[in-house]
């Protein structure tokens, strides 16, 4: 079953006189793990923000689950947003709330569960990201970088989203931890049947996590294919990029 979860159609993004995206098209199907790659300033994070509706493209439209977020009434829009979870680069945990309350926040906002159920769900999410239940009482400022990422992931997963967006999931983690974090995302993806879109600069993460790769260069998507197929795409950035991941691809077989 290949259902389009996210459909980006002829999107232009213009900041002042700076054109970031020019007539960009990209379709992401259900169940895929897609990584967005591109040079610095190529507009990867901007594209991610377009997808979740934080920003609006200057022209063109972004369809999420077949609907345009910006053209919906408020309540359906809110419910649609509940079907996606985003992991921000710095975690973006609410610093005034404890870990437990951070994860419980989206569940409480839904107003459908009693406290006992919420407690159970939060503890389930904590165990999903391999954290001890007693970390729940700590504040985000008392956590290490890796733990913040894991709590943020738990919060993003609180409403069992279909689509998970990760902005630099392993940035700021040491290699061992980032490897573990990637394994964690893979396990969760397996368990919950997620579609994942992520942006990363870390080639190890990229090779071990992604099924497909979308390459942003020259203000558009120059390649949207599996990692192995990149070899046959004739574009200087793609070729350069492929050299970087070739060794890693061979290693993983």
């Amino acid at each position: 079953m290949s259902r389009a979860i996210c459909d980006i159609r002829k999107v232009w993004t213009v900041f002042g006189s700076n054109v970031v995206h020019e007539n960009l098209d990209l379709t992401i199907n259900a169940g895929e793990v897609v990584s967005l790659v591109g040079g610095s300033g190529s507009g990867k994070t901007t594209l991610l923000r377009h997808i979740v509706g934080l920003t609006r493209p200057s022209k063109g439209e972004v369809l999420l689950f077949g609907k345009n977020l910006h053209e919906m009434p408020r309540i359906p829009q809110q419910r649609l947003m509940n079907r996606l979870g985003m992991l921000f680069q710095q975690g973006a945990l609410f610093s005034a709330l404890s870990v437990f309350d951070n994860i419980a926040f989206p569940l409480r906002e839904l107003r459908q569960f009693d406290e006992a159920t919420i407690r159970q769900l939060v503890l389930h999410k904590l165990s999903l990201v391999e954290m001890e239940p007693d970390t729940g009482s700590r504040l985000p400022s008392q956590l290490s970088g890796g733990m913040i990422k894991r709590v943020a992931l738990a919060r993003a997963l609180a409403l069992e989203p279909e689509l998970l967006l990760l902005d630099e999931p392993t940035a700021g983690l040491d290699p061992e931890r980032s490897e573990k974090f990637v394994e964690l995302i893979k396990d969760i993806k397996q368990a919950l049947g997620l579609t994942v879109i992520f942006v990363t600069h870390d080639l190890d993460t990229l090779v071990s996590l992604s099924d497909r790769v979308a390459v942003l260069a020259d203000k558009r998507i120059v390649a949207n294919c599996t990692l192995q197929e990149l070899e046959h795409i004739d574009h200087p950035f793609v070729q350069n990029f492929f050299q970087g991941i070739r060794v890693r691809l061979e290693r993983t077989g």
Partner: protein
Amino acid sequence: MAIASFQLAQDSEGKKRISLHGQWSLREMDNDFAQLRQALKPHFANQDLHWDLSEVEQLDTAGAAVLWNGWQGKLDNKTGLSEEQNHLFQTLGEINAQATEKPKSGFDPLTLIAAWGKLTIFLSSHITDFVRLTGLLVIELAYLIRRPQDFPWREFSANIYKSGVTALPVTALLGMMIGIAMSYLMATQLRTFGADIFIVNILGLAVIRELGPILMAVLVAGRSGSAMTAQIGVMRVTEEIDALAVMGISRILRVVLPKVLGLTFIAPMLVIWTSVWALLGGAFSANMELGLGFRFFFDYLATVVQPVNLTLSLIKGVMFGFVVAVVACHFGLRIKPNTESLSRSTTSSVVTAITCVILIDAVFAILTSGIGV
């Protein structure tokens, strides 16, 4: 794809059974688990009911948790569970076993003593930090006397602009309004005594000695004090202050000292500015109400208000500017990296600064009561 629902039925042996249908998950957007829970409540209570889950299309943790809590963890007399679902319920069961509610303790008189102790420690930490900050400022000033070329001129002038020049319109407006209001009220009172002329004495003394400095201090504490606290706080959160320290640049010299000196320098001028506008407003109102000429008002003002009052006003301005800036920096440096601490410190900074200013003003008024009146 269908929303979560349930059906009651009776099988051939007359036993009641309930079968669940549809997607018991948050992914189906039209599900409302609050309603479902309410509707299922009587059935949860019925122990003999037979639950059939074979028709469930999808079950996620949220749906499972609702059911599990309703069943209170009992999985017997449930059929049609797939292996995955069984596993899900088991995981939930394990979590609940781990979860232990904290026992609520009753009133303990020792908490009162503990609260006192905490308050004392909290206050003494504030005092220590404040003394340390003032000490550091003195050390930096001594350093600057030896090496005047290190004086942070750019930051100094930037602070004068930010907390002085940009405050001109608002202080003028407020001063004028207060002047008009005071003069208007007093004019009506004085007229009944036929003591019209004394409005100049009262206004002159009140505005120059008291209102001008206090008004300026309150406005500056609200405008610049809060801005300084928030700025230093955010610089701490984003580690900018640490970056300065790593470059071998003293954070007190670059961040705190220019703010304190800048505000101390500009505050007396702001006092004069505010007082002038308040007197103008007063003169305007006196002219309207009592028919006193502007020229007469200011000529007479110079003869009835002794020049020493102006000096006192300037001294107050210097003190208030210094206090507001130091308090703002003190609270800024105590901010911890979270939004709650930032907002609390900014509030405390403004409240403490205004309180200090008014306390100092009262003490000063008592000490100088024999001068200039």
